[in-house]
């Protein structure tokens, strides 16, 4: 690290930071694009189909359809980039970035491995070091920003179906963020801090001390609300082909559409990372007290991939909710449940547990 830093004429801390940023964000973006393929192949298998398996490198090397990513990318790059005549052009261009950037930014706080000491310096495996004062509040706040991209995309398209989708997405977000916040507050109380490293430390290395076991109700609420937060089925109200054409991205094509899709998958990755960190012990390896750094990273990535897969799995199992059912679920079920969860854990803490 020192060698790299002197090579780049920066301090080791800065070099380490840059390396982390590059690794984390490129990994998330790569995973997000791979997940478009996983989604298509996974859904095909769930529905007894075969899915994209034909795209091949140089017309020969069929790596179980993985070249589909490249094919899609090339196609999107070379498609005509249409902007509707009556669209708000500035916002229309800005919206995909507004959707994409917050989806990635949320990942910055997540520790993806245990911290280690090398040469008297502690290296933390998260883009934002612990003790930065923002803690888990940061991804929640950024997550709230994500709907802004959807709404701006919808608004700037100047299309009534788009704006309906955007409005529905933002209403969903408002309703479900309360559930998320209350569920997470119960965790903060139990973890005695809101820094992700505190939360992970409080969970320990045994699976039955993880928060999913200690607060199953909170987990249920948080998990459900994450689907609303990421705009995934069964709560993907920004879209809805049977009701409002394609929803917020009706007017989008070529690379801008691709970026919106990538934003959804990056958001999915961030959401999975949040679930893994808050409820499944983050980088903790089950039954291993002090895992090596690589083991802890592997454990975290495994959890992340599992929950990303669950998002796909749920999407192809459950149908989309009706809008009034969504509001009913959000306000009359999720909010009271998370409230009850919070009160219960507050009472338990007052009893000295």
């Amino acid at each position, binding site marked *: 690290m020192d060698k790299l830093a002197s090579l780049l004429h920066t301090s080791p801390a800065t070099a380490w930071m840059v390396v982390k940023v590059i690794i984390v964000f490129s990994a998330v973006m790569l995973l997000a694009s791979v997940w478009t393929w996983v989604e298509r192949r*996974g859904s*095909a*298998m*769930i*529905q*007894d*189909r*075969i899915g994209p*398996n034909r795209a091949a490198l140089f017309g020969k090397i069929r790596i179980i359809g993985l070249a589909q990513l490249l094919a899609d990318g090339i196609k999107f790059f070379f498609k005509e980039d249409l902007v509707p005549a009556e669209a708000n052009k500035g916002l229309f261009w800005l919206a995909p970035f507004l959707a994409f950037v917050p989806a990635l930014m949320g990942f910055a706080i997540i520790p993806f491995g245990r911290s280690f000491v090398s040469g008297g310096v502690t290296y933390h495996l998260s883009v934002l070091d612990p003790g930065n004062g923002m803690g888990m509040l940061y991804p929640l706040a950024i997550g709230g920003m994500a709907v802004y991209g959807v709404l701006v995309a919808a608004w700037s398209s100047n299309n009534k179906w788009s704006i309906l989708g955007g409005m529905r997405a933002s209403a969903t977000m408002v309703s479900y963020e309360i559930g998320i916040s209350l569920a997470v507050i119960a965790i903060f109380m139990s973890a005695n801090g809101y820094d992700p490293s505190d939360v992970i430390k409080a969970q320990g290395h045994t699976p039955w001390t993880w928060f999913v076991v200690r607060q199953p109700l909170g987990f*249920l609420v948080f998990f459900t609300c994450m689907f609303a937060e990421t705009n995934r089925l069964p709560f993907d109200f920004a879209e809805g082909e049977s009701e409002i054409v394609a929803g917020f991205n009706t007017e989008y094509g070529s690379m801008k559409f691709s970026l919106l899709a990538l934003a959804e998958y990056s958001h999915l990755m961030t959401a999975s990372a949040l679930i893994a960190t808050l409820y499944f012990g983050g980088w903790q390896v089950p039954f291993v007290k002090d895992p090596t750094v690589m083991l802890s990273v592997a454990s975290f990535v495994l959890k992340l991939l599992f929950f990303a897969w669950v998002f796909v*799995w*749920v999407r*192809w*199992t*459950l149908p989309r909710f009706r809008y009034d059912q969504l509001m009913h679920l959000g306000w009359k079920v999720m909010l009271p449940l998370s409230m009850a969860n919070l009160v219960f854990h507050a009472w338990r803490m007052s009893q000295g547990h």
Partner: protein
Amino acid sequence: MGVIVKKVELTWLDRTYVWPVLQGMAITFGHFIRNLFTTTPNRYTVQYPEMKREIPDGYRGLHELKRFEGGEIKCVACFMCQEACPARCISIEAEEFSDLNITQGFQEKRPAKFSIDMLRCICCGMCEEACPKDAIWLRKDYELAAYDRLSMQYGKWDLMNTYSDADGKAHINQDPTPSVPRRTIAL
């Protein structure tokens, strides 16, 4: 007549919604796992260019004009198929032929031209039904694409050779001259 719709009474377990969701997810996961460990040829999907479905008997595909063993066309140019064809894709020009009329004093008829416009043909099989001589069959080929319209005009020799390879017969491109009469008429 009205039908009384039975309302399904949900148990409390169903009303939580969590348990039915888990059941549904178990079903989809079962499908996923089953497909994951099934090789592609064994799945329901037929991967078309590499795999092809077995064509059932009675399938009506590309036509064949049948021939006798000597290579003579069975068709006698009676125009029954042309009349029967609902898509009007068959056009026949008849000719009299024989060297027998000199020796035996009768003439036979055969098509000089027999063309089927495959762009119009609907493979209904009416020509096959109408044919009194069993001279035209609809068989199992169904991949009839071509790059230009002219290639879809099947002429007499095209139609006589459509299944030559499949049946292991010789390709022929001219009518053999009969040397012996196929039937003898007592004069």
